[in-house]
């Protein structure tokens, strides 16, 4: 593109929220974000969901959700006791075919999310199915399921199908596409809370203060996937990994706020989740956490200009 060619106007898609009074100038929350960010998040979340469904859930599905196994619609009634608002569609669907049908629906919705077909509906369907399975057998879950619920809800609200979808708006618009920024900020706050409050609880723990907690985790024959490799690391390295984890978790919001520490902090986060995925039984907590990081990649920088498309 030559310097004299005027930049096409950004196209905004979505409902820009209004806030009362001075809050309407809260740029951090309200400023739109490039549509590519939310589309990338949608794809990452859909891939994490398909891994969760295909690799983690499906192979042991009968064992985990049938009455002959660890599940059944009434297996964990105390989850739904008075005074709480947990719910699951699997409580009302017949035990014979309900779990299978809901998993099939969830899979279809995750595929729809991946290719960007009606992401609001497919995101909400994914969220409904995810919460239903989360509540019907809570023993199978860890914090990754709560992250998963937040991601599905965020992607559904995020106009994540504005680009990178089968019927993309970019077929008719060559310039930048913007979508509301608040869903990205909500998810960012959620990620920050996961890290910071984890760090706070660890900071209060004697085991984390001394660092020996990671020595014992890494040598645990169940929690560690590679316990035979752990003795090759010196004790100090295990302890240091605990201290680095606590410091990084507590400082995460500060580190990503400044340009000169942002990339290093994010790469450390990616490395942390990849390493723990392959060395500890954290499972889908790692995959869904990694999906968050799609938000931070400047995909819009690699936007291709499309000659011949209409420009305002």
């Amino acid at each position, binding site marked *: 593109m030559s310097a004299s060619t005027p930049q096409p106007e950004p196209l905004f898609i979505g409902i*820009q929220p209004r806030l009362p009074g001075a809050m309407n100038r809260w740029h951090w929350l309200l400023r739109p974000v490039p549509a590519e960010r939310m589309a990338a998040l949608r794809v990452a979340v859909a891939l994490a969901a398909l891994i969760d469904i295909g690799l983690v859930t499906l192979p042991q599905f009968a064992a985990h959700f049938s009455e*002959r196994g*660890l599940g059944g619609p009434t297996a964990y009634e*105390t989850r739904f006791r008075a005074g709480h608002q947990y719910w699951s569609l699997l409580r009302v669907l017949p035990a014979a075919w309900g779990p299978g049908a809901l998993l099939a629906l969830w899979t279809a919705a995750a595929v729809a999310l991946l290719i960007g077909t009606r992401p609001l509906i497919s995101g909400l369907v994914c969220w409904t199915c995810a919460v239903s399975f989360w509540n019907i057998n809570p023993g199978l879950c860890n914090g990754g399921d*709560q992250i998963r619920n937040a991601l599905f809800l965020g992607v559904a609200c995020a106009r994540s199908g504005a680009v990178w979808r089968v019927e993309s708006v970019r077929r008719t618009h060559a310039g930048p596409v913007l979508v509301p920024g608040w869903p990205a900020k909500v998810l960012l706050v959620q990620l920050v809370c996961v890290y910071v409050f984890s760090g706070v609880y660890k900071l*209060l723990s004697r*085991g984390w203060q001394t660092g020996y907690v990671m020595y014992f985790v890494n040598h645990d024959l169940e929690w560690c996937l590679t316990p035979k490799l752990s*003795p090759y690391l010196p004790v100090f390295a295990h302890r240091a990994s605990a201290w680095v984890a606590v410091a990084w978790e507590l400082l995460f919001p500060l580190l990503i706020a400044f340009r000169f520490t942002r990339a290093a902090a994010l790469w450390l986060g990616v490395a942390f989740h990849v390493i723990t995925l392959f060395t500890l039984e954290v*499972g889908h907590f790692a995959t869904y956490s990694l999906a968050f990081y799609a938000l931070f990649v400047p995909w819009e920088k690699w936007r291709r200009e499309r000659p011949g498309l209409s420009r305002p």
Partner: protein
Amino acid sequence: MKDAPLPTSHAKSGPLPWLVGLFALWQVAFPVLANLWEFVPRRVTPADHYPELSNTQRWGTFTGIEPAQRASEIAGDVFAFWGEVTGLKQGWNMFTPDFPPHTVVPVAELHFANGTTARVASRFAPADPDRPQVRWPLVHDREFNYEANITMLGWHADEDTVRAKPDVWAKFPDRVRDNNELFAHWLAWKMRTHLTANPGAPEPVEVVMIFRYIPTRLPHEAADAPRRPAFERPAAKWYPGGPRAPGLLALEGFDPVAKRFVPLKAVTQP
């Protein structure tokens, strides 16, 4: 995240942008407030019992001023409501307050009417603790979580700790009762696994969950030092034929202080 300029003209008129704005405000405040509120002590209600008290919430009171305490608890109820309805439950405390210096493996021990026993191990039990195999991530993650949610209850029940805190560990049967569904379904599943693998085998009269503790070499010990001996402790006993008396669960919890099984009353919410 680098943002685009704020397009002030994009907000349309009508109620929808206002509703979206209020929802955005709530969603961005919720995780922060819900996590902070876990540090504000609140009084226990019947809904907080059965099966468990949240392990991240602080319990008690933070002030003697009743309206302030009550207002804080109502706010906590609102956060709990939203977390449960949406699945956005907060509370992030992995590997805290501490991690035990041993691996805890659950074992199902089947007791038959003729006095014989059989054992069904967890798939995660190491065949040889000194030569552990590398495992694939994700594949059995869910089953691992299920077992970990059980064994974590007895993580620190080694002899020294039980002796040092008898008042705490004498209440272990209460923890079994609070989590009776987890215990009972796992034991029933392992029993069925055994019966499927052994066609014609009789149904057991009792199935005992045993926690096997495999000590981890301490940091100052050499990597090839002999491992301290493993030890076992019962955790719960399940009766496949149902409760032994009206008003009881089909599950008993093991008191590691008195070293006996304790019948558990069926959960009845007040």
